[in-house]
């Protein structure tokens, strides 16, 4: 295999650069240009004349966060056409999960063609590392990570566990209220 050689020119350090003042002016030119262009855009926009924003900042809680189309977000369980969960409780996702945060208990399904279904299906999102392995492992395409929900938080660790109804979207997750901070609560748990 031929070796490719790239020649990188060393930056010049002639008198013009050494004097530095001219370089300072060039730098100031760049920053002044940005300053005045952005300032003009801000002013035009606040007067309702221009549409180009003066800054790239997203004012996050007010403006929605921009997620990539393939971003992995909070899990959701999918349903069949008849409304029953697609999951067949094969435990492949529970097995592959590197964070060990999926807990499934299986039961007989009334549908003989399906044989098994999940009785409980809990994901502890607080422990999930959002690797997406569970989605890839599922043979029946029952679990997706495309809810576009990233603002998952709660006051207790227990509230981070989502059960099957919540994952299916049948029930809205209702977080418990902020517990009054007590000294006992902040103490480390007894072994």
């Amino acid at each position: 295999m031929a070796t490719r050689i790239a020649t990188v020119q060393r930056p010049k350090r002639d008198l013009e650069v050494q004097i530095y003042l001219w370089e300072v002016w060039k730098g100031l030119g760049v920053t002044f240009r940005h300053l005045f262009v952005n300032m003009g855009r801000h002013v035009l926009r606040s007067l309702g004349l221009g549409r180009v924003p003066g800054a790239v900042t997203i004012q996050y809680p007010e403006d929605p966060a921009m997620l990539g189309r393939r971003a992995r977000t909070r899990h959701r369980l999918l349903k069949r056409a008849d409304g029953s969960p697609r999951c067949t409780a094969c435990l492949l996702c529970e097995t592959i999960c590197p964070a060990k945060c999926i807990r499934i208990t299986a039961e007989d399904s009334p549908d003989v063609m399906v044989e098994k279904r999940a009785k409980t299906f809990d994901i502890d999102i607080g422990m999930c590392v959002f690797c997406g392995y569970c989605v890839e492992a599922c043979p029946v395409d029952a679990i997706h990570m495309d809810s576009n929900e990233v603002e998952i938080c709660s006051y207790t660790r227990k509230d981070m566990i989502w059960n099957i109804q919540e994952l299916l979207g049948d029930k809205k997750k209702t977080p418990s209220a902020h517990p009054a901070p007590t000294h006992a609560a902040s103490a480390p748990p007894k072994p």
Partner: protein
Amino acid sequence: MTADRIFTAVKVALALAFGMNIAGLLGWVERKQSAVMQDRIGANRASIFGLRLIGLFHPIADALKMMTKEDFVPKNANRLLHAAAPMIALGFGLLCLAALPFGGTVTVAGRLWSLQPIESSVGLLFVLAMLSLGVHGVVMAGYASGSNYGLLGGLRGAAQMISYEVCLASTLAAAAFLYGTLDLQQMVRWQGHSLGGWLPAWGIFLQPLGFVLFLTAGAAETKRAPFDVPEGESEIVGYHVEYSGMKFGMFLISDFIESIVIAGLIATIYLGGWQVPWVTTLDGISGGILMLISFTVKVLLVLFLLMQIRWTLPRFRFDQVLDLGWKNILPLALFNFLATVWAVYLWGGR
């Protein structure tokens, strides 16, 4: 007599208020200007009753935060010097402000009023002396903290500020020789005539090299980027590592005050002070107000330029700072002085 004293005291108080308010405003300008030139928005969340006013309340929030923070003194610090250092740094900076000629003299109600707080025939020396005394705050802070990082920062600060004071003084020597006075007020008056009938005889046109040198040395004197080796808050921590709460805030404000002093000196010596170009007679109340506005606008413009430089250039290494001062600016300043002396000898100063 008593009325004069009271008037002087009022003027000094107003000069200090001018400094403190502009320093507070600079806290906002610093954030916003850097943000806009970096395509960001900048701090805009502080609100009073939902009113945000493009972040103008942030300086107030800053002050509240500083005042309510814990005032921590390290165990092996010298408590007295530790407390005195920020006051020295800030106090001498503020004193400089009181000697700046904010305006000339106006006749109101049949009486002559001078708008300069402290009138002195050696005002320039006074300002330089007070600026140098401010160095003690920096060194003292480093020394009294009982921390090696602080001490090293203080030493860097002392080396830098003393070097650049030499540059400042030798640059100003040329200007003082040209104007033939050390009185800041007289300097401004001297710049009142015009060159060739249309160009105001400002220092920047007669001393262009001196202006550039003074701007550079002045920026170094304020200890702000690109000359922020004494503080280097992002990695090589500086003389105020061991400070918290309002004492730290005083160091921050003293930086701003020093910038204002430098900007005021540049406006006075190189930009014609309170002179309004092409207006020769300023008198009465309206004239006085015009003088004050003219001076303030010039100071703010220089501060704007200093702020832009601060957010454009990366920090010099310590040896580069000293090289620049001793090997470049000082010889150029001496050359500038000699050239001025020759020019005045040949063409005659006024």
